[in-house]
């Protein structure tokens, strides 16, 4: 198994996944993307990811539910929440429930890289 950080990105707007995948791959992460929360949760059940990046507002299952599901499966996974302007309150709730950090849209891939790097450092120090 690769020693690269395994990252899952979930956003129901597919452009977000398309944009982030190459940006994070260029930084050396292994990246899987999903624009459907149900499929993402199935994948999370199959495999433990180091980092999960999820949008907070989605139609079927919201980011808080994803966070709870991920942390129930693996407490070491770091969950980063993507929020819009209108969902900052939800992001606070997510932080209270154990999210690692949140990032507000619209953002630069580099902003997310910085947050992921912080999470990676924390994961490394746990080993």
């Amino acid at each position: 198994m690769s020693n690269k950080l395994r990252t899952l990105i979930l956003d129901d707007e597919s452009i977000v996944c398309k944009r982030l995948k190459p940006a994070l791959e260029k930084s050396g992460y292994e990246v899987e993307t999903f624009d459907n929360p149900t499929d993402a949760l199935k994948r999370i059940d199959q495999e433990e990811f180091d980092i999960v990046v999820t949008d907070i507002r989605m139609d079927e299952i919201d980011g808080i539910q994803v966070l709870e599901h991920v942390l129930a499966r693996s407490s070491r996974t770091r969950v980063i929440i993507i929020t819009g302007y209108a969902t900052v309150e939800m992001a606070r709730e997510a932080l209270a429930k154990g999210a690692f950090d949140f990032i507000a849209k619209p953002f630069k891939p580099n902003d997310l890289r910085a947050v992921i790097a912080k999470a990676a450092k924390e994961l490394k120090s746990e080993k």
Partner: protein
Amino acid sequence: MNWWRKLSGTQPKLDPNTILRLKCARFHHVQENYKKFNNLINDAIEKLGGEYVIDKQYLSSLLENAFSLAGEIVHDMNMMSGYQYSDLFFKLDRMKSNLRRILAWQPQIKSGDLVISLSDIDELDHYHQVGGIFTRLAEIKQRLGLLVPEGFVISFSAFSMFVDYNGLEPLMNLADARPTKVMEELRGKMRVATLPPDLAGDIETAVRRLCEIYEPPHRFILRGAALGEEYNKHSAGNLCAVEAVGPGDVLNAYKAVLAAMYGGQAVENRIKLGLDPKCDVAVAVSRMINAEIEGSIYTVSPDTPHNGNIRIETLSNGAPDAAYEASRRPPYNVETYPEEETSKTRLARRDISGLAEKAMRIERYFKGPQEIVWVQDKKKDTYIIQSKPLILDVEHSIPPGELAEAVARHESLYDQAGKVACPGIACGSVHLISGRQDLENLPENGVIVIEKFEPVMDLMLVLSRAAAILADTGAPTGHAASLAREFHVPTIVGLGDASRRLKPGDTVTVDADDNVVYMGEVSELLHYQLQEYLNLENEKEYNLLRFMLHRISSGGVVGAGSSRTKLRDRETLDNIIRFCMDVTSREMTHAIESIRAGLLKSAPHIESGPGLKLHLIDLGDGIEPAGASGNKIIEMDAVRSPLFRALWEGLSGAEAANRNPAAFGLAAISAERLHLNLATGARTYILDAYQCGDDEYNYIYVHISDRLYAEDRSERRILWLKGILEKFDFRTFRSDDGITVWRYVMPATETARLLTIIGRMLGYAENQDMQVHAGMPVEKEIEVFLKQQ
């Protein structure tokens, strides 16, 4: 119950100073909202640079915020002008509805031309009228300067008119890929339908024009396309085409293409692409080229994608006849050239290199491998018939997970040092630009390295040859950056020292997706780009932002290197708001003039020499209480307003001793605000400025109108004023009667400094000694003034 007071005439009469105070407050509110609007748009333009992840949520909020601010500005303007322009609310509503439709990826509410010449199609103006497949062809013709068969497109609006005229909508709502009776009935009705007379007339006129511009025999090819089809790589083919149509048969062929677009296969394809089976159809009518040789070009050879070659094939009677390969880099050397003389459609080596150069120009522009259909006529002119994305079904040359290590082995010259103005990845050799001659000598696929990235028109002539642009200065919101985006050239600005650090001929790889510049060729990145690359410019959200900004904000350039090159001038939200600004300025002038007689009797004034006399109105804490009323001269010591003091310092300077006498001047002042209305001879100056403890809210707005504007001397004087103010980072807008300038967000000290300079400038401009000599360049006169500052 204001309305009842108005109707019954019982509205309390306000004193002139109160009216002026209320109008000033309203004017100030307009300025505030315009500043917010500008910030919003500048922020969105920066996001257009490609560095940000944007989604529909962002686009919706941008739309709502922009129209909410515009609505407030139109409301304030109407309140100031007695609701003379209430029709603007309807205009705003229509624009907003159209933008909402664009966000939903639907054609715009029907309006606009039924038939549009291919030469007139502009991507941003016409995408939602003719669709992406035909705008791509127009871009190849207009932006890249390549030959495309003459023709025109019958728009979505025309289709909609055709559907309404023949009552076909109910059947279209049942569009289905299965061979149902309804679909059969729909196609049958389309084939025998009657074209609305206006539409038939427009098509016939366009056909006649086409027949006039080229020699007989006149034969056309008609092709249909739906909105959004180009966003799927598998779709950009000739779904529904009718060939060899004579001039008299175009109307029937149009109906045949529409019927074919509702054929089972076409509907099924749309469903597969995730498009609505019921769609609006645009139909292109193009001249059929009498082909001597025809064929395809794959900018990456599909069979051997790793060898880095272009594959060029020729056809004979529709079947592959000969195949060649050329390098993907200038000078596009021929790499594979079959020596047997068996093929009927043999190409000379120089023709192969020429085709390769054209193909790579198209690939650079569309930022991805292309499959191109071309024909060559007897005169050896090569026409591009179609270009669509090429899908490469190959193994990765480098696993994505290992890309980071591979890229890290290359020396990065700049990493996050500048700002991305246009996304993309490119590799080429450095070409330093310091003058016009350098631009002319830009080689194909050269990387432009330039100190100041300014919108010189010559730049447009060479952008189709450029692989990338690196600039020492500039901003993603600048005009030059928007030019780079129009030509899809990966661009990073604000690098500081690229023009000194890089040498001509250096090979660099520009990753403007990640804001990094590498020395040398980063082949791993370039291969990754070919296989995995996400071309942002092909993404809906990116294009939606472009379409929205195009309709919200002014500016932009069309028609590279042709006589059509001009600044766009059209109905945008920005232009509506500027109109409101002009009206509110005029309303302020009227408000002052209406109370002028009273003011002259009652307001104190301040004088400087015989030529300058300004009446002052205190809007609150602008003048010492003892001096605030009565028709008397007051000294500067009695003026509290820091803005007025700063302006007066410049206005009353020594150089203005021989100024033209001011016919009337008035300044309404408070501790934080200055509103100046100064009429001198032919010109009127309206200046509004605000200053408080928060830099965010400080602004200066000036409108200068000139009755003699059309005359050369006045025109030169306006250019002089504009030139100086632009040097101080003011944004300028030429209006029918003069010029409007503004600058927002600055420290209080800067507001005061600029007001002093503006004061000096107005004094200088009105000085009778200041002559705008016809023989002296305006730039020189600007220099003379600036030297004195």
